[in-house]
């Protein structure tokens, strides 16, 4: 049984993203635990990449800090193994395909499952290119979390229909980052998804305020926040733990109950 399957069983969820290794892997472990205590349903761990083309400046900055701190894929696997001794929260990696490809699909997926990772979000691997990696992930019961964008239109059903874990609905055009206003008709994307699957649909990109979480979880199964969290880590660094707890708690409290 994959841990993500239970994440949305009894409630809608708040999903938090952090870059692994920012400012250090030791702190990443602590931050995950703090965010779990605050009520996060699932945590996305970013594997830092030299050229994260789907990220805005805030998460690019976290990638740079993590790489400068000497973070590598192997060290992240070791950290997750340690983390798994303390928590059973569903964990997914957000990583660029080259990190997986260069490590070797088989080797990467095997290490994920051994360490306790439940799924992968790969922003530069669209539907058309999942054929190489997906069978390997299936073998290890590792879920591929697909992304659906405001421009996906007639692709929505095809992407959603066999999705496992949850579906990442991208709220806005552009890259990750806090936005003052989101104009996409996300609700109609979610209802399109509902026509073909019961897999939870969670909304991300541009979210930073509890009111947005409340609005989105009216009709979606979860809200995803990255840049706003990474900003807190960027500001408070090693001391970010309590601030993350406070922030994530407010956000989790705003999630609409089932």
């Amino acid at each position: 049984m994959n841990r993500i399957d239970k994440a949305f069983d009894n409630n809608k969820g708040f999903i938090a993203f952090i870059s692994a290794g920012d400012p250090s892997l030791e702190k990443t472990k602590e931050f995950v635990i703090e965010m779990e205590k605050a009520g996060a349903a699932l945590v996305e761990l970013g594997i830092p990449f030299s050229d994260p083309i789907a990220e805005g400046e805030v998460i690019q900055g976290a990638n740079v800090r993590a790489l400068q701190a000497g973070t590598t894929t192997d060290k992240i696997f070791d950290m997750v193994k340690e983390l798994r001794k303390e928590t059973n929260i569903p964990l997914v990696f957000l990583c660029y395909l080259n990190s997986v490809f260069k490590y070797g699909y088989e080797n990467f997926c095997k290490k994920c499952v051994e360490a306790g990772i439940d799924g992968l979000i790969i922003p530069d691997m669209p539907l058309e290119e999942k054929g190489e990696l997906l069978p390997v992930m299936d073998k290890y019961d590792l879920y591929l979390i697909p992304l659906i964008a405001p421009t996906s239109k007639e692709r929505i059903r095809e992407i959603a229909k066999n999705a496992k874990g949850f579906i990442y609905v991208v709220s806005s055009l552009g890259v990750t980052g806090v936005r003052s206003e989101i104009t996409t008709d996300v609700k109609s994307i979610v209802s399109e998804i509902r026509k073909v699957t019961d897999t939870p649909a969670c909304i991300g990109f541009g979210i930073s305020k509890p009111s947005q979480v409340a609005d989105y979880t009216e009709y979606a199964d979860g809200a995803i926040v990255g840049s706003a969290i990474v900003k807190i880590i960027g500001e408070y660094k090693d001391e970010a733990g309590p601030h993350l707890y406070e922030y994530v708690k407010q956000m989790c409290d705003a999630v609409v109950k089932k």
Partner: protein
Amino acid sequence: MDKGRFGIHGGQYVPETLMNEIHKLEKAYEFYKNDPEFNAELDKLNREYAGRPSLLYYAENMTKTLGGAKIYFKREDLNHTGAHKINNVLGQALLAKKMGKKRLIAETGAGQHGVATATAAAYMGLECEIFMGRVDTERQALNVYRMELLGAKVHPVDSGTKTLKDAVNECMREWTRRPEDTLYALGSVMGPHPFPTIVRDFQSVISREARAQILEKEGRLPDAVMACVGGGSNAIGMFYEFIKDEGVRLIGCEAAGKGVDTDKTAATMATGTLGVFHGMKSYFCQDNYGQIAPVYSISAGLDYPGVGPEHANLKDMGRAEYVAVTDDEAVEAFEFIAKQEGIIAAIESSHAVAHLMKLAPTMSKDQIIICCLSGRGDKDVAAIARYKGVDLHE
């Protein structure tokens, strides 16, 4: 899975936000490439705006001095805007117009592709925004001003290594911000399908002309054709029509920087490994964890950590050879061709000239080499002076 593949290379590894736009571009290109009206318009632009066909020039002095094969240069440096980049940009700008796009965005390294894009946008009434690494805006300041004169907005890119790779990243990000009215006029035979094919088709005019010109002048095919390779657009343009001519050697010259055994190099074929980046599977300079390596070359246009997927496949098949040329060799060639032929060639093209200087003397007098002079070197004069320690009091 096979769509847009060159052997195992190529593909469409981009964010979902771009996929619909990429498919629209594929469909539009499939239609227009066979549309007689589109082709007539492009042909007219090539002739009457870009100044095609470009000369196939017999370099008599260099042939004599080097004392081996007969040397011809394909003079892409004589095109409007001074480089081969205009061939691709006129095609893509025309395609953008036909698709109803309002804006072109593009990355640039040396500035040649940026200038060409700004030129085509000005001519065709499209908005234009160019992304250029901060380091490149400094080493090619004149081209920045040129683009601005042409009405383009130039965005210096401060992320990563602040060079060509980062300009591509920022262009992709910008395209996801505003995909529907914008065409990303990619400057090389790289990126996701259909770009490597579109750019190759528009650049193949180089070898289509060169093949006919050499048959007319010499009554036979050349023994070798060569070109510099960054992403590889002038090289694929120079190779394409000769790929089927098995007796013609295809030689790509990449930038070794300070040397392929140093970490100051951009020689992807010599030092890279298979990876997935910038929308394509191909060879890249990267570490064991797939982090893209910071690369280096004196030439901003060759300072790129990857290579186009069709080149990667030509290498795998053994159809083309790739050699690495250092900064020092390229600068020496830059000076040699200037003094011998009275041609100031781009520092990018000078990488091919440098290898030509090694290769020609090893061949016999009845053999023929065609070397692509991809661009003119006016933009490089100040940088070469600095490299040589000459104070120009600019």
